[in-house]
């Protein structure tokens, strides 16, 4: 499989701050790749080096077989970037906005109007971008990044500051973009989002990639206990402790939770006693992987 992006030993220092401190990874063609980490982890700097906005102090980036730095006009039409939500020309309507971006690439206005339709903004075409909601502005800015039909798309925290509905709406759009065969690289500090969307993620903190791989593999690799919850009172706490001596049992007055590495045994024992009222089974999530790696509170 072709490697669309190759990052090799990239470093970037600002004075004593190591924004990116020796990062290497590959992104394959058509892959949905997530760079995950808290604010200030160096995600945006890394993304900007990959896009060719910044020169790495050390290391190399190859994008579609070319070097993004210094500015490479042959590469630019093949990549689409969304830098931040409000990267719009002032006081233009949604249609004027996307048509302006389209013209920068020699793309005809009809394609711009088509993209407005794809992101569901046709009825907002004559609305000024300042008046769009957060979700609408994000969809427009993604459409502006895609209007010229790039092969690789870079999105910097596309769902930051969106409400849950707008976030889900945007996820559908991002999946669709990736389904069309484009390689998508996004940064996020939402673990759930990365877990849901990305083929592979790289977890980043303090300028380093701590771990990378498919989200499910990272979670499995954590070997974390499964938490099984039932309604309080279904089984007495002491009874549960005797029943599952290897597990950790706690009760907060609402749910009784059993944390175990052998969920099958616990579930069948509870089922035998017909004690599954209010059952909720939670495996480890990417967030657990992250907390395990960084060993401290997640700083969103």
């Amino acid at each position, binding site marked *: 499989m072709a490697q669309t992006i190759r990052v090799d030993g990239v470093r970037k220092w600002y004075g004593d701050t190591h924004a990116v401190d020796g990062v290497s990874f590959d992104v394959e063609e058509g892959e949905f790749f997530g760079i995950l980490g808290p604010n200030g982890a160096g995600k945006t700097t890394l993304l900007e080096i990959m896009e060719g906005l910044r020169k790495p102090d050390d290391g190399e980036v190859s994008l579609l077989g070319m070097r993004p730095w210094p500015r490479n*006009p042959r590469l630019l039409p093949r990549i689409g970037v969304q830098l931040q939500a409000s990267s719009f020309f002032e006081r233009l309507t949604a249609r004027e906005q996307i048509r302006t971006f389209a013209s920068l690439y020699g793309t005809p206005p009809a394609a711009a109007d088509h993209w407005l339709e794809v992101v569901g903004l046709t009825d907002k075409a004559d609305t000024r971008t300042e008046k769009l909601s957060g979700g609408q502005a994000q969809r427009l800015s993604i459409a502006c990044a895609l209007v010229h*039909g790039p092969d690789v798309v870079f999105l910097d925290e596309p769902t930051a500051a969106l409400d849950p509905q707008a976030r889900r709406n945007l996820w559908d759009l991002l999946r*669709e973009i990736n389904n*069309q065969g*484009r390689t998508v690289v996004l940064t996020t500090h939402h673990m759930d989002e990365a877990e849901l*969307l990305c*083929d592979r993620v790289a977890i980043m903190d303090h300028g380093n990639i701590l771990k990378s791989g498919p989200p499910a593999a990272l979670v499995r690799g954590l070997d974390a206990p499964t938490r099984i919850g039932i309604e309080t009172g279904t089984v007495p706490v002491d009874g549960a402790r005797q029943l599952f001596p290897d597990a950790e049992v706690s009760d907060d007055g609402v749910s009784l939770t059993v944390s175990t590495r052998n969920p099958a045994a616990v579930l069948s024992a509870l089922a035998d006693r017909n004690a599954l009222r209010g059952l909720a089974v939670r495996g480890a999530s990417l967030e657990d992987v992250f907390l395990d790696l960084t060993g401290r509170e997640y700083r969103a």
Partner: protein
Amino acid sequence: MTSERPLDGDTLDASTAPDSAPASAVATAPPAVVDRPAPGGMGGQGQAGRARRTTSFLSLARAMFLGFRRDRAGLFFTLLFPLVFLIIFGGLFNNTGTYKQSVLEVGSVPLIDQLPADARAELGQVFKITKVTDRAAALDKVRNGDDEAVIEQVGDRIVMHYSAADATGAATVQGVMTSLIQNANVDATGQPPKFSLDSDSVEDKSLSYIQYITPGLLGYAIAIGATFGATSTLVTWRQKKILRRLTLSPVGVPTVIGARIVVSMGIALIQTAIFLAVGAGFFGLKLSHYWWMSIPLIFAGTLSFMSIGLLAGAKAKSMEAASAIANLITIPMAFLSGSFFPLDGAPGWLQGLAKVFPLRHLNTGMLDVMVRGKSPVSVLPEIGILLAFAVVLSTIAALMFRWDDI
């Protein structure tokens, strides 16, 4: 959860281009109309590259101009505000030159009445003469300040009554009357006068206040428009990362700068058209033969003010801070450059100081070719100075330039 992921990397055909992507999950999705430029034309060489550069230049210029046209506050300060100054100043001061002294003639004053027709007409330019019969009532009027003077003639003696409260008006009337009497005395001798005085203003005869204030306020308007135009594009585009976004499109930096320059020059021309139309239409502004030479002057001025704007925006973190810096430069510049009133009465050091401002040179040049009727060649030095300002200031701005805030 992970089974919801839309795409299994292994199933993807590596050669699939986005344009011919397989059926997508959403019905409206296939972007078949997206027309990707051929790889060969991407470098910007050849006809396709030139055509793309032209369309992107035009669409950037259009985006900037629409942004300007829809900015109410910006429109107010670049168009309406200087125009209000023009209307106030033009209306307030424009009639001072033709203000006539009101003189009451009691009974018959042969000295005035027997003047030849042309001399009478000339006198009519400075005096508004009203014949009255009631001497006491006429004196009351002068005392009240309604009229400047009462003139009566008793034999060969001319008597002028005036009010000490209006010394200027009285002195004017007295001066005119004295010269009338002396002319009459010379005529009475039957000799031709030995000495004569021809007085001539060093300015063009028609250089009334409106002739002075229109180029001055126009210069002020252009300075505000070009300075703030460049500052706001630089600062807001930097804040919104549009500058960065543009460098990641195939559009080159010269295209972006060129579009901004053309838009600012267009705005300056619109300002010029409005000012000249209002000046000529309402306040009797008369343009000299070579007024068109003000257009290259205005273009050179626009460039130097834009470079001031770039300098103001170079270090500013927000548009508010940038406006404050731009105001701090443009307002003193407007006063010291004689945009509102002539600098002739100012001390020499101040007039010297004024020369550090490009607006001073633009104002001088525009005054010369718009109303003083100087030759087009005479303002070439001003154009050169304005261009030099632009080169020096934008070089400094380029050295101070930063892509990001912080």
